[in-house]
């Protein structure tokens, strides 16, 4: 349940004056925000709700001055950001599943070389890419294989990276970092913008 507006406003003011109070601010707003978000957007999974609420709270911690108390209460502002993030994530997920070709069927059609030459992008056999991939750690190679297979589930990547025993948020953060790093290195190798 949300605390009174003046309490939240005081926490926000403290956050502007002293950014070190971010954790205290998060204590006040994160759980009420997740609760309200779950109630207002029922089809969302608990993970989706938690993620959207966390992103919204981090956004306010990072740029507290963007919130204007004259325009709307802080809970409404946080909810607005979180709902937008949640909807964007859900839309992206739906789009991904809609356009995704089942991996089994791809393997059936192209049993020997199903990973090469299927689009206009650089082949993974290109020397510059092979050199970069050769420098990957075994965990990065496993992650790359999963990405090439269209895998998106954090749990699967976490398992491949050997971090499945860590807390969910830590897994998610680490998986994102590895994916970003792989993408940047591959893009650099082919001369594209990272």
């Amino acid at each position, binding site marked *: 349940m949300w605390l009174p507006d003046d309490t939240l406003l005081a926490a926000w003011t403290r956050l502007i004056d002293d950014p*070190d109070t971010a*954790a205290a601010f998060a204590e006040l707003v*994160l*759980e009420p925000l997740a609760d309200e978000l779950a109630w207002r957007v029922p089809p969302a999974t608990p993970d989706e709700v938690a993620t959207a609420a966390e*992103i919204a709270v*981090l956004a306010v911690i990072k740029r507290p001055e963007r919130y204007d108390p004259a325009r709307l209460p802080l809970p409404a502002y946080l909810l607005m950001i979180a709902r937008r993030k949640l909807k964007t994530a859900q839309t992206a997920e739906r789009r991904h599943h809609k356009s995704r070709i089942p991996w089994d069927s791809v393997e059936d059609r192209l049993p020997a070389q199903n990973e090469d030459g299927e689009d206009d992008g650089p082949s993974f056999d290109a020397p510059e890419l092979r050199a970069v991939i050769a420098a990957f750690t075994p965990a990065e190679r496993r992650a790359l294989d999963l990405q090439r297979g269209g895998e998106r589930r954090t749990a699967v990547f976490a398992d491949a990276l050997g971090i499945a025993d*860590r*807390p969910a948020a830590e897994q998610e953060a680490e998986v994102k970092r590895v994916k970003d790093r792989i993408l*940047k290195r591959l893009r650099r190798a082919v001369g594209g913008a990272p």
Partner: protein
Amino acid sequence: MTDAVMRLAVRAGCDPHFLAFAFAEYAESEGLDEAGVLALLATTPEGLASARLCRMPRPDPAGFREDVNRIAAKFGLNRDALAVVAKRGQVTAELRRAAAEPSAESAAALLAARDHPE
């Protein structure tokens, strides 16, 4: 501190704006798990979570020292270890930014500028 805020603090590790980024980078490069990071910084899980959500220290030497001293004192972290971790996080973030520049020339120029401060 709630588990939800602990998770939030870990999530902040994706963003170089937060000190959490430095902790995550250091832990990854040194192969440290959460217990290892806690031991390195000689702090509690609550202290670490609070520090994670702080801004990365300012890059100028005086600002860096002041920020590190303040955060270490406020949340009970080993100051020297925090300074090492934060510095490495800053350098990593800067190199990533340089690498993300659209051309190799601009990245090289940025790196050169770092080596030759005014």
